[in-house]
């Protein structure tokens, strides 16, 4: 049988080894030597490295969570990963460090793909985190800062400002932010502010909305449903807890691309927000309802339009864990389904590491999102 179905490559992880901060590089060389000596055929060990990746977390639990994801990153985008943990504990102790490496086994030998360095600081010595990180970055390679904390990065103030100066790219995730409107305002101010250089800024929540954006764009394409996009007058969205920042971006995107102007917004209740836009003489309303339980994602999106011809509506929904599509019974357009490929945050980050340019669409969307936050007068 000739089949080409892919098999997951075998990753060998070197167990983390505590080390003095000053001896990190020396210890890593030692780790590679051990890999080489362990290889049966005494093949040369190759070290592939495409980026530096600094990851910031503020709890032990986050650090454990993200550490488990590092082999995934190593597999897709070999990088030197520097995990920076700022623990909330107060103790008068020096910064702690450990090193490990990941090696992907190939048919004919071994190849070290990635190194993982973990640096832990506490309340008393976190100021040393960024100088230590700086000394560990590999020159000549792009550097990304992945903000793993569930808070907007700017909230960390000085530490964030120091770390971002070393990076070419910032990756964060607005899902789960305790106060989305405040977070959006803070981040848009920072993105458009004078203080920072031209880092690529990437929000994983934006990436998660891509299948929805594609489905909406294709299902309501002018050649499929003429005039629908030009005559939308009502949008209703149901979403799970913590998904608000993501939905916010979706509305911001539609407003940017379809030329809607924001008129007003209102926090109707603790679980409901509405915005009013206009486009030419047409008024349109967007309502968001948060459901009491469920995954932090969009569950249902109803778009209504009133063109020259008959009015129409489309009910976009998450059909199950693997698919989303248009529900025939409550839509005036043909049903369609697309697959959702489930990507972990680590996979999304690994793919993003190779991107070196700002996404102007995201930046524009962020601007509209900021206006949407401002009109709520929170």
């Amino acid at each position, binding site marked *: 049988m000739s089949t080409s179905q892919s098999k997951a490559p075998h990753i060998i992880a070197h167990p983390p080894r505590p080390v003095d901060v000053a001896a990190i590089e020396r210890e890593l060389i030692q780790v590679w030597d051990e890999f080489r000596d362990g290889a049966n055929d005494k093949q040369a060990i190759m070290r592939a490295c495409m980026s530096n990746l600094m990851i910031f977390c503020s709890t032990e639990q986050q650090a454990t969570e993200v550490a488990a994801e590092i082999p995934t990153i190593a597999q897709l985008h070999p990088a030197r990963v520097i995990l920076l943990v700022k623990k909330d504990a107060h103790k008068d102790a020096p910064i702690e460090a450990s090193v490990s490496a990941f090696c992907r086994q190939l048919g004919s030998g071994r190849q070290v793909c990635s190194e993982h360095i973990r640096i832990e600081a506490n309340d008393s010595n976190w100021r040393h985190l960024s100088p230590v990180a700086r000394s560990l970055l590999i020159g000549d390679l792009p550097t990304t800062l992945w903000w793993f904390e569930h808070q907007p990065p700017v909230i960390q103030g000085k530490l964030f400002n120091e770390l971002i100066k070393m990076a070419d790219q910032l990756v964060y995730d607005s899902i789960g932010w305790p106060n989305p409107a405040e977070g959006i305002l803070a981040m848009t101010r920072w993105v458009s502010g004078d203080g920072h250089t031209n880092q690529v800024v990437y929000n994983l929540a934006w990436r998660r909305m891509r299948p929805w954006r594609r489905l909406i764009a294709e299902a309501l394409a002018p050649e*499929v449903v003429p005039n629908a996009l030009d005559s939308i007058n009502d949008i209703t969205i149901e979403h799970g807890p913590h998904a608000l920042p993501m939905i916010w971006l979706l509305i911001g995107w539609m407003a940017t691309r379809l030329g809607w102007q924001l008129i007003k917004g209102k926090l109707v209740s603790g679980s409901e927000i509405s915005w009013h836009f206009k486009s030419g003489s047409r008024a349109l309303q967007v309502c968001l309802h948060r459901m009491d339980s469920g995954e932090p994602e969009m569950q249902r999106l109803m778009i209504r339009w009133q063109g020259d011809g008959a009015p129409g509506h489309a009910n976009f929904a998450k059909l199950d864990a693997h698919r989303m599509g248009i529900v025939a019974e409550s839509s005036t357009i*043909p049903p*369609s389904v697309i697959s959702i490929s489930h990507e972990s945050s680590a996979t999304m980050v690994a793919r993003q590491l190779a991107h070196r340019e700002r996404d102007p669409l995201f930046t524009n969307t962020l601007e509209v999102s900021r206006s949407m936050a401002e009109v709520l007068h929170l």
Partner: protein
Amino acid sequence: MTDSRQQNPLTAGLSETLLPQPCTLIIFGASGDLTRRKLLPAVYNQMLDGILPANFAVLGSSRSVMDDQAFREFAHEGIERYSRQAIDNHHWPDYEHRLFYEPGSLDDPQCYERIKQRLSEIEHEFGIPGNRIFYLAIPPSLIEVTVEQLRTAGLIMPINEPGPFSRVIVEKPIGHDLVSAKKINETLARSFNEEQTFRIDHYLGKETVQNILVMRFGNAIFEPLWNKKYIDHVQITVAEEEGVGTRAGYYDRAGALRDMIQNHLLQLLSLIAMEPPWSMDADVIRDHRMDVLNCLRPVATDNIDQHVIRAQYGPGTSHGAGVPGYRREQDVDPESITETYVAIRAFIDNWRWSGVPFYIRTGKRLPKRSSEIAIHFKAVPPILFNADTNNPLEPNVLALSIQPDEGLSLRIATKLPGPKVRIYPVKMDFRYGSTFGNPSPEAYERLLLDVMAGDATLFMRRDAVEASWAWIENILNAWKSSGARWLPEYPAGSWGPLEADRLVESSNHSWRKL
């Protein structure tokens, strides 16, 4: 033709490449080997990866009597065996729901009427705005009748009028010689503009092949060396381990020169030798590839054996077992003089490549399946580390491997550790699969997506197909007039005939060991 992407403000920035447009893929030859092994798995993988347009369907047709359900089972079996990603029961119902089948013979006008009817039902059901891609996965002899019938039935949309698009995909071989290739191209041109015509050469869909341009023009260190001053010679090899297999009927009439050199190897040659294009526009790239074909020196026919070697595999070994020679294979004429191996020394007569030999070879029943392009740089001067004439340094070689593993390697000289200066060649390897972890999509996946998006960069243009036929026709004519009754043999499982070794040895070169 209107392009939906320009009208739809929501598609901006959704994808880094052109977005595939909603359409129906109509496969003629739907019961065949290509459909089962490549096309249906390619569409399935695109769906799993979430890159297939939401409004999309497949309508297959061939003479075999099947209904939609039987076609879906045929697809299931093909995908189970050949797909890059395994069948996923969560997604299978959505996939099979998009598959339809209409039996009929391609010379029967009624068949097209039924297809027309089915298409309008499918397009209505899936919200497809009339965009159609006709994939001709059929014997080349049927292309003419199919295209004529499609036109007569009004199934093809003219390109210059606003509205949905029609595109056609044709497979190799495009013709048997220059005259028949021109005839096929003229047939296509009567119904489709060149912009609507996509001639597939699946080699161009492979990651490494696309990486040739990036490597050459995205790195400052290679291009300054990419010329006769620094490159000694180039070797392009496409080696197959398999014998003629079940394709004897076609192959015995075609041979390696038509089957491999005319398309795949000349396309690789033109990519490796082309001048820097000034944009990534499909026609700019194709113009530059075409320039190389225009500069290929016609092979001198009076002493053809000094430039072109042909041979046939004899009995030998494959996969550790004995195998018969070519003439003893099933459905092969026992007196056949069809070549299963070709090696050519070619020259590109332009400023950049004047005097640099390009050795190209392909064959069946070679020791392993392996395709690569190797750039052999000139040796360093015979002084210093290269002063010992009995022990010359091995020159640098940059090898681009296309299959089975995609990647590139560079051979460099390095000092072995120790007090004495001892120099040793080291190969630095970069493999796509291992560096980037996730498997690359199959060539057919990439190419089908390009057709849905209307991007013709990786497809062969009419002039290139005809230019490559014109070049090899010279060789075919010389062979014909030689009146040969037999060909040199090489044992199955070897790297080809001794004559091929002599071809390169006469210029002090040797074939790479793969």
